[in-house]
């Protein structure tokens, strides 16, 4: 006996008015009888969207790290810093905790997010039954952490707004900051478009218990 889920029992829940309806078998696009919103038991083409956004984010991750995020113009010349050069500078100047924080928040987290989402999407695609609970937790962590990876962009934006001393010192956001922001937004969109329920869909009645027990 499989674990009863709304989908398996043939129920649909309206995303707008929360009205529960019975699914129409064979119908391509069910609508809510009360408010007329589209009904679907899972987010439509969730995996494909996730993939598309993920791939876009992965491509833009390269210029985000290769191009400068901050252009500092001062009497001592112009300095163009990429994220990694900033981390290296912090590390060399002895601010190891700060360097670690920036490195984790700006490099590791987006990268892990890309990899993790990719892993989740792939596992759903192949209907993997392994470590379902772990994957669920992973998704929750991703959702939580994702917003913090904009830290770098925030810092640059604040500095760029604050340091406007004309010829003495001037900070501009570099093109890298834009790509970085796009990467973060794309990964957030990707994780939003990913439907975590899909993780569990492949799990059978027994597996679910086993998975839950593990």
């Amino acid at each position, binding site marked *: 006996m499989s674990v009863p889920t709304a989908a398996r029992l043939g129920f649909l829940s309206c995303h707008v008015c929360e009205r529960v309806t019975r699914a129409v078998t064979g119908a391509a696009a069910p609508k809510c009888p009360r408010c007329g919103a589209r009904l679907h038991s899972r987010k439509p083409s969730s995996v494909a969207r996730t993939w598309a956004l993920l791939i876009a984010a992965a*491509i833009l991750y390269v210029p985000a790290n290769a191009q400068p995020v901050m252009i500092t113009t001062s009497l001592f010349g112009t300095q163009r810093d990429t994220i990694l050069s900033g981390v290296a500078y912090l590390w060399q100047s002895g601010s190891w905790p700060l360097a670690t924080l920036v490195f984790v928040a700006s490099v590791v987290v987006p990268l892990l997010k890309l990899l993790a989402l990719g892993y989740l999407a792939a596992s759903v695609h192949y209907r993997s039954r392994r470590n379902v609970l772990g994957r669920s937790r992973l998704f929750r962590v991703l959702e939580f952490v994702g917003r913090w990876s904009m830290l770098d962009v925030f810092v640059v934006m604040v500095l760029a707004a604050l340091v406007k001393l004309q010829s003495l010192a001037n900070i501009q956001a570099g093109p890298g900051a834009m790509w970085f922001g796009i990467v973060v937004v*794309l990964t957030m969109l990707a994780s939003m478009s990913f439907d975590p329920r899909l993780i569990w869909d492949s799990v059978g009645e027994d597996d679910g218990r086993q998975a839950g027990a593990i």
Partner: protein
Amino acid sequence: MADKPAQSDMADLPQARVAEKRRSMFSLVWIVPLLAVLIGVWLAWRAYSQTGPAFTIVFATAEGIEAGKTKIKYKSVDVGVVEAINLAPDQSRVVVHARMEKHAEGLLVADSHFWVVRPRVAGGNVEGLGTLISGSYVGMDVGIAKTEQREFIGLEDPPIVSRDVPGRHFVLKAESAASITVGSPVFFRRVKVGEVESFRLEHDGDGVRYRIFVQAPYDQYVTDHTRFWEASGIDIKLSATGLEVNTESLAAIAIGGIAFQTRQDAPATQPAGEDARFRLFARRDAALARAELSVVPMQMRFKESVRGLTVGAPVDFRGVTIGEVTNIRLDIPEDRSQLVMVVLVDIFPDRLQRGRIPTSKEDSKPFSEGAQLLVKNGVRAQLKTGSLLTGQLYVALDFYSGAKPAVVKWDARPPEFPTVPGTFVGVEENVMAISNKLAKVPFDAIGQDLRASLVTLNRTLDTVSRLATTMDRDVSQEIRKAIADMRQTLTGVDRNLEESAPLKQDVREAMREIARAAASLRHLTDYLEQHPEALIRGKPEEKP
């Protein structure tokens, strides 16, 4: 309770309505990664297309250069950046790897120069102050060659003049470096028109070679006949003409300088070519004196001291400088009788010739004839004091009417010009002769004799004094008596001589008789003269 309503609710849950099928959203989502790919490709292409050529510059030291930060600038525009700094394989130099920006690719030609711009104070001006805070950068000067090059040897000092400044270079050869350094100004009529670019010793060590740059349009004033001289510092000269202080400008005092000018009587010629060679004279007058005048070396032999005569002292004909002393030495003639001072001079015969523009090659024949004629008319060389203050001597030529006949010895090497002793020397000789004679006078003996004589004289005077006293006492009484007697006698005489006195009557009578006697005597003598026979025959009877 909870289950029951749920069960019943579930049973009469409404069916979802069926809507018409919509187009799939599938393709729209994939626009996002497609856009990402396009952006990525565009970025990559742009990065690739903007990457200029890599090249290397070899420097002696990498002081001030930072990999990834130091810029390469041309006319203060960023054209590249230093990417890495390595030691050369032999570790003697530093190889700087740099990358040019794409648009500046054409600047990497064979004769482009690179140097590190650091703050420096040289040549009277301060450069690169901005680099004090902004850090050094690599400056470049683009060459004119067409061939591209990727390996360069960096300059240690920035070139003084950027290659795009119009003008010309000239090469000057000097005997010594004086106070002129790289960056010293070049003056034309006290206007700064250029700079000294570099200087080095000649390869054979024979002098110093300067390379100077004269900006356009002033470079047209440099012709083949232009003379250059050192206008360094303060030129204080003590010479026969007195004290001279010359300077070109305050800057030249501090860092030296070079000035040039073309002789006014020089023939007009084209401006000198690029890298034309000139001699750098030490002084202005030396530079302008000779020009292309012909020079006749001569010697003058003096027997007096030439102390105060210096090399460069003028040879002067009634105030006109017609030559200068080039050397002074001693000579021992064949007979070894005495030493002779030989003064070698350079005579500029063109200055003696009237109204003629000197040509470059002047035959010395007319000069020799003219000189011979002058000497025949009494022109001689003489050492004269130019300045009593300094005691400097000069060689003066002038007419000396009383000079012994002489000729210019043209067969001597160099030809010898006749001389006369200096006036000052003549006076000196006379004074010496007098003093020698004076020295021979036995002043000691004379003094002793004089003293003895004075003693004797003293004694004599004493005697005289005593005598006078005696005379005053004894003789005066006698004299008084004698005078009284004389007065008595004279009174008697006076009485006898009165008009009516008998003596006087008698005398007058006697005198009358004598006169008559004298007349009768004259009568007799006259008669005797006419009738001498009367002396024998007596006076004949008078015939009726």
